[in-house]
């Protein structure tokens, strides 16, 4: 079994290398030159990051007590987070309605196949193209971004969700079916609660994805931090671009920590009581004071 697995992985890796060579036109030297060009570009144009993006803008005048909130970095990031949050929630609602209809273990092929085709159609247009379409229809601004990412989220999250449902243990579904529960009751009372850990993980991943993707759709004028990144790129202000990229990276890490915390409520790991740093420190102090009193 192990040998077969290694052979399959080896064959796939060789195939990938052959395709890469084909795509590169056999010119492997480009990789070496490209790397040295990147080092020069990074050290001369991007480093050090220009943190002035976190300073208040000169116009309009900042009236807030916290000047940081008037900075390009803060305004862009908050707008991106707003777009990502709204589109993730709207997309999740759309996906959770459609995915139980697309799962083959919950519906007949007459329902699941058309819903799968619909989700594939929505997903096959990248969010950038959706953004372009909505910019044409309703104009520049964050609303186009919200609608674009909502549609993409429905397609993407819908696929993740129905594949999760199809991969679940069949026991609870069979018990529900034998009991005479309706398909709707099985989906809402059995399938969704049973997969809550995965659904939550996918939801937060999608939010993180939408935050990162907010930078891309800004390019077509759909708002968010991407709008400012595009402007800095136009004027070759790469240090500022790098500072904003670091800001996005920090936000992504924070979202990952929130995901870890949120999922601990619905997985076994959360049931294990682990010592916190606070407990460890207090215990040490307690033990020390007990030892002192004994002396």
């Amino acid at each position: 079994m192990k040998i077969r697995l290694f052979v399959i992985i080896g064959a796939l890796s060789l195939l990938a290398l052959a395709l890469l060579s084909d795509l590169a036109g056999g010119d492997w030297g480009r990789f070496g030159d490209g790397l040295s060009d990147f080092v020069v570009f990074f050290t001369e144009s991007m480093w050090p990051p220009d943190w002035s993006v976190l300073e208040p803008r000169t116009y309009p005048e900042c009236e807030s007590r916290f000047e940081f909130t008037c900075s390009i970095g803060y305004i862009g990031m908050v707008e991106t987070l707003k777009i990502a949050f709204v589109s993730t929630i709207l997309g999740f609602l759309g996906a959770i309605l459609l995915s139980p209809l697309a799962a083959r273990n919950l519906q007949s092929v007459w329902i699941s196949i058309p819903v799968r085709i619909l989700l594939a159609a929505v997903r096959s247009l990248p969010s950038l193209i959706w953004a372009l379409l909505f910019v044409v229809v309703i104009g520049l601004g964050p609303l186009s971004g919200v609608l674009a990412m909502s549609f993409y989220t429905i397609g993407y999250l819908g696929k993740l969700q129905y594949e999760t449902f199809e991969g679940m243990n069949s026991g609870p579904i069979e018990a529900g079916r034998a009991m005479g529960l309706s398909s709707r009751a099985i989906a809402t009372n059995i399938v969704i609660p049973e997969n809550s850990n995965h659904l939550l993980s996918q939801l937060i991943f999608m939010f993180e994805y939408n935050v990162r993707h907010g930078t891309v759709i800004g390019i077509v004028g759909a708002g968010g931090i991407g709008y400012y990144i595009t402007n800095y790129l136009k004027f070759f202000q790469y240090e500022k671009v790098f500072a904003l990229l670091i800001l996005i990276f920090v936000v992504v890490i924070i979202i990952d920590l929130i995901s870890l915390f949120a999922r601990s409520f619905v997985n076994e790991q959360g049931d294990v009581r682990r010592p916190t740093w606070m407990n460890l420190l207090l215990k040490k102090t307690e033990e020390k004071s007990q030892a002192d009193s004994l002396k």
Partner: protein
Amino acid sequence: MKTELLSLSDLVIGYDEPLSDPISLTVGPGEIVVILGPSGIGKTTLLRTVANLVMPLGGRSELHVEPAGGLGYIPQNLGLVRHATVAHNVALGAGVRMKWSFGMYAERRERVMKALSAVGMDHKASEPVRRLSGGQKRRVATARTLAQRPQLILADEFLSELDDINATGVMEAVFPLLAKGCSLIMVEHHEEHALKYATRVWELNDGRFSDLTVEAWKKRRMEGETE
């Protein structure tokens, strides 16, 4: 109106190959049937075929129970929603035969707590199922079926993982339902446990199916041992 709850006519069970000769029988109200036989012989397949979860290779299996909630099913892996609470799981059973009304939620809650206290699990109502032991999960699955109040229960090894006291407790919790005409068909490896309550034994062995009374089964067993 038919009095039997289940009728099998020339039923051939199996996935690709037949696992038994054709089975024809009926099950009436208030019966306790134990399916016995060595591991892998097709006991679970028979139960799943009766529950209409597996297509038979031949013949017919007909359930004469209400389509919504008339059949209670406790699979081998119990089929509980692990990330939901004990009360949520039992409420699934309680709600299946209920028609919507303003008082439905209070009635369902009452039914859930009654079923849980019958199996001694009422103190765990708000606990997620994943935190329970194997025996406790079996009692929750039984409570789900009790709250459902079905006409026929199909249970796959629902007394295993339970100690003698709890196994007796679970069976005693099911008795009021049986007294009202519900029947129980169970697959059980612990013969002495199951035979204490059984009124009928279905034996699967080497592809042969036998429908026997408990006494007849015991007699056949003794004869087999003396040979």
